[in-house]
């Protein structure tokens, strides 16, 4: 019994000492610390690891150029393991224990919502690089991915104007991004004169595999000869079964075109694309974009990560965000979050598709919208490209968010009600 007791006391003591040690071990030489908050294990690892590598590559390049403010950048990589509460834990650790000056991270909306209260409490800085549903604006976050008006709305316009689609099937995985996007699109289509009965909305769980009934419903929609188009916010593995079922039903992209918002180069690499050829995707960037800066980026990426690796939209968003942060720190002459935040707004930086992106006071970017046709090799043939579109945090197509505006420079509020002329809340709505 004696030894047992001693052992356990020793164990407790070990825990306490290790705490003190981890706590004391971060007093180091002068570097600027960059936190990387992307899942490296679990379901999201396949997508997010690429972004971790992108940030590491950008840091390496920046250090080769002499760093920032004469100091080297140091990456602090953590693994939130696709576990949403762990994102909050790791964000707090990055900000308070590792004392990072900026974070690049998150993919899913739920991970972002998990991190928001922590970074707002501790006044951190996060660059979020993925297309999302909007309806949010945080003082501490820069959204470098697309808002719905930079992806979904232009894609719908393409369907209406270029392809003459008259009936719409909005198919999505049952979570917040498809729900909100489809709610916006439904209203947008109604405003454009599409009758409510010509809009078919359906949600399926994650990893859904039985698509026969839904595909049959979509096909039945076009029984009267009107052109049907599918707007897909289907996420992840479920896509494979969906496109397979379409092909099995003898439907080609000419009969019923599908435009997807979550299918990119990374998702297509290593996949049999036979069933997907000819269908569409809408993004702000494709690897096939014809611009010298893009060719350079692809070359560097392949040299860094491997010849077989592809580039994609969230990587471009990371690239733009990273460079804007570097330039903002240089301009502000400090890594102080408030000063850097102010300096990031208004930053202009060439994006990889040959135009220039600008950070707006609502912490969103201006980006061009590209529509690409899936090719057999998993790349996209760009069929349409717009001028840079300013990202809108609060959509204009829903009555309750139409009155809201985000402007962190003049209004100093991310959720300003233009009717009552008040700031609804300073924190974001997590």
């Amino acid at each position, binding site marked *: *019994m*004696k*030894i*047992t*007791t001693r*052992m*356990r006391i020793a164990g*407790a003591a070990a*825990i*306490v000492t290790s*705490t*003190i040690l*981890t*706590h004391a071990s971060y007093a180091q030489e002068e570097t600027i610390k960059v936190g990387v908050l992307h899942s*490296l*294990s679990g379901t999201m690892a396949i997508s997010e690891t690429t972004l971790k590598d992108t940030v590491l590559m950008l840091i390496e390049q920046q250090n080769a150029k002499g760093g920032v403010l004469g100091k080297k950048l140091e990456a602090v*990589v*953590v*693994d*939130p*393991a696709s*576990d*949403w*509460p*762990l994102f*909050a*834990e*790791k964000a*707090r*650790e990055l900000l*308070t*224990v590792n004392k990072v000056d900026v974070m690049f991270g998150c993919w899913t*909306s*739920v991970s972002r*919502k*998990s991190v*928001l*209260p922590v970074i707002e409490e501790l006044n951190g800085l996060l660059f979020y690089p993925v297309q999302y*549903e909007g*309806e*949010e604006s945080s003082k501490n976050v820069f959204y470098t991915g697309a808002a719905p008006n930079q992806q979904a709305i232009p894609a719908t316009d393409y369907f209406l104007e270029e392809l003459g689609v008259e009936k719409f099937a909005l198919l999505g995985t*049952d*979570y*917040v991004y498809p*729900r*909100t996007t*489809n*709610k916006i699109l439904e209203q947008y289509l109604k405003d454009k004169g599409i009758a409510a009965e010509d809009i078919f909305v359906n*949600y399926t*769980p*994650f990893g859904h595999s039985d698509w026969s009934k839904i595909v049959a419903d979509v096909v039945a929609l076009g029984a009267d000869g009107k052109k049907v188009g599918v707007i897909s916010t289907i996420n992840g593995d479920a896509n494979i079964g969906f496109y397979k079922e379409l092909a099995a039903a003898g439907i080609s992209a000419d009969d019923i075109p599908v435009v997807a918002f979550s299918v990119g180069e990374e998702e297509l690499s290593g996949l049999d694309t036979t069933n997907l050829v000819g269908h569409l995707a809408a993004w702000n960037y494709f690897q096939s974009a014809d611009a010298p800066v893009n060719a350079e980026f692809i070359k560097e990426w392949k040299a860094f990560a491997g010849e077989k690796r592809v580039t994609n939209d969230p990587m471009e968003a990371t690239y733009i965000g990273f460079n804007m942060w570097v330039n903002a720190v240089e301009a502000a002459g400090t890594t102080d979050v408030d000063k850097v935040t102010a300096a990031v707004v208004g930053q202009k930086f060439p994006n990889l598709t040959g135009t220039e992106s600008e950070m707006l006071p609502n912490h969103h970017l201006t980006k061009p919208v590209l529509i690409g046709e899936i090719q057999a090799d998993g790349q996209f043939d760009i069929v349409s490209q717009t001028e840079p579109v300013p990202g809108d945090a609060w959509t204009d197509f829903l009555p*309750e*968010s139409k009155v809201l505006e985000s402007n962190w420079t003049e209004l100093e509020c991310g959720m300003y*009600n233009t009717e009552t002329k*008040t700031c*609804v*809340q300073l*924190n974001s*709505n*997590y």
Partner: protein
Amino acid sequence: MQRSLFVRQPSVLIFIGLLAAFTIAITVLSEGFGLGLVSTSFIKILGKTLCLCLVAIAMDLVWGYCGILSLGHFAFFGLGGYMIGMWLMYERTKDIVIASLAGAELPATAEEIREGIGTQIFGVVGGAEIPVVWYFADSLWAQLALVVLVPGLLALVFGWLAFRSRVTGVYLSILTQAMTLALSLYLFQNDSGLRGNNGLSGLQNIPGLTHLPQAVVSVWFFLASAFALGVGYLVAAWVVSGKFGSVVRAIRDDETRIRFMGYPVEAYKLVVFTLTAVIAAIAGALYYPQAGIINPAEIAPIASIYLAVWVAIGGRGRLYGAVIGAATVSLLSSWFTGGQAPSIPLGFYTIDWVDWWQVLLGLGFVLVTLFVPKGIGGLFDRLVRKDAS
């Protein structure tokens, strides 16, 4: 009775003593109340770990002592979290809505406030109506009662149906997996009214206490978790000692025999199953305000399997074993995911923690099961025996 419990199980007194010493030491070292040597971030990790230890004790009670390998106890843990989360989210949002309506010319009506709350909470997932399940969300006491009642009733009904039909062994395990899977799939749906995949977030901001820094709130929750773990340990130790405990262990060892001796086996199992579900729910209700967010992925079947693994690693049928198992795995995972684990260069290949931590942890599980079948807790037996000889 209390004295005889400690005499019969000296490990209980030792555990409570160590827990108290540990709690006081951490509080003194914390940023919120003391020297500031332990970061708030680590206090939160420790507080969450204590909650996981508590649910592991529940698991040990139901599996290690009663022989019911439930692979669904994390469902009760999650439900407890959801119940308290509803109040936290509703009240926090209410404060925001009232504050934002305060500037209006006319004072806000209750109807307007309710509407505002609905839009705030459900607007992001495409609704504005407050679902029926949120009926009691404005009352802390009601939601606290639901923390116990909802998982308790679910366990009671599920257990009654399962045990009455004499479902045992692996079939029961599968049934409990099905239960937690069904619950998590249901909650994933937006229509379930609990915000689907997004779940309930911002739970670390306690309504009415938002002026307090997290450094302070985290210590409070750490202390509450330690207290709950202490009480839970005492309750569990009391349950497994004495006549009731003897019958429970006998059910584990030979169910048929006990039934023929005239004991109502089903009733005993039902009591243990429901009691442990309630303990798990209380642990969950303390865990999620520290974690900050709860969503359906938390009660995916894998979580309950992990729970069984923790107990197996720590050693079944000895309550402190469950605590050791849960604490070891939880703290190791935290350390590995924190990116502080060093890479090991082997010359021809570098073992990067990022690629290998889960493999190493899994390897640890296998090694413990193979070579230390009684778990880490079993090592104490060996030490004690060697000491005596």
